């Protein structure tokens, strides 16, 4: 199709689809008028049954915990897929940028930048841990906290130097945390089977509602998800960073 023909065809098609969507949306109950019995029941029961204050976390990690298990593996597959796609190919080399001028030493970052990085990274570290571990109490949890934790690494990069950090090769550690977090979710699920009930049953002591340690496996699952997501997002960003900074196409 020429671009013009495609545009005309698309205009007709999208108009028809808009009508169809409109018909469907018009059948919805009016906005804000209705609450399903399922939702009402869970809102009522979850705090008492699961000793949580954030009902969303009870649904994500307990009532519908298997959804979140597969969600974590979607993330794991995306990270693995990106690592496959962005791996250095046979016509590419990994070269650290300073190779161009081997005798040049990298200037250390100025004290102000360094101080800021230390401050920011510790702040982010605390926020991330707090977000991960309080998932059952307040909005936030393993996923959100995990992304925050992953960002710590990049603040460290900012404060020091990408190349310096790269020398430590944190990749193996990040990969391990990605894989460990994901398998941790499955292993915690197996506790339920070992206790003679179902996979992913919440069989750990639930604690007192509102306490820092409460919610049983809901909290544990938040922690392992935090570990997985932190590793996964850090790998993700580092794969893209590698592409821009150290991976080059060999000259033929």
């Amino acid at each position, binding site marked *: 199709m020429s671009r013009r023909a495609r545009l005309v065809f698309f205009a007709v098609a999208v108009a028809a689809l808009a009508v169809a969507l409109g018909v469907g*949306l018009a059948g919805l109950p009016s*906005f804000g008028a209705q*609450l399903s019995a399922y939702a009402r029941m869970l809102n009522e029961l979850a*705090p008492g049954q699961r000793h949580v204050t954030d009902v*969303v976390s009870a649904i994500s990690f307990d009532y519908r915990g298997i*959804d979140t298990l597969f969600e974590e593996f979607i*993330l794991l597959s995306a990270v693995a897929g990106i690592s496959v796609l962005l791996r250095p190919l046979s016509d590419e080399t990994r070269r650290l940028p300073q190779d161009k001028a081997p005798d040049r030493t990298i200037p250390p970052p100025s004290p102000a930048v360094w101080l800021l990085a230390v401050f920011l990274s510790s702040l982010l570290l605390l926020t991330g841990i707090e977000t991960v571990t309080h998932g059952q109490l*307040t909005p936030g949890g393993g996923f959100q906290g995990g992304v925050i934790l992953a960002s710590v690494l990049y603040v460290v990069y900012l404060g020091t130097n990408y190349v310096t950090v790269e020398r430590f090769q944190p990749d193996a550690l990040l990969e391990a945390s990605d894989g460990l977090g994901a398998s941790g979710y499955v292993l915690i699920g197996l506790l339920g089977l070992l206790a003679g009930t179902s996979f992913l049953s919440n069989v750990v002591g639930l604690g007192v509602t509102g306490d820092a340690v409460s919610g049983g496996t809901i909290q544990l699952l938040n922690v392992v998800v935090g570990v997985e997501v932190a590793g996964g997002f850090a790998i993700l960003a580092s794969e893209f960073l590698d592409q821009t900074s150290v991976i080059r196409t060999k000259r033929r």
Partner: protein
Amino acid sequence: MSVLAYGVVAWLFLIGIYGVVTSRNLIHLVVCLSVAQSATDILLLEIGYRAGGHAPVFVNLPAHPGPAVDAVMQALALTDVVVGAAVTALLLALVVQVHKRAGTLDPDQLRATRD
């Protein structure tokens, strides 16, 4: 109110697809796809909204807080946000490589799979 709320869902979904169809740059195309994807999250949360409802977080509530909004739809939207992020990142990795191998980002210049 309903018309506006649900209309935004259809609008974002369709304009996102419009962006995909007319895009001249694959990075632009991928971001447009994520706009269409956000329409689904909005739909879920709107279905779960209860006028005057409070967040499904049962802490520090007044004596008679009234109903909370639907926590189930929030849990689903949460999953979908993660799925959307995963797909977008994966697509961007593909785009970076295709630019290396085909030398262009214009989707209409990519002819490797033409029949």
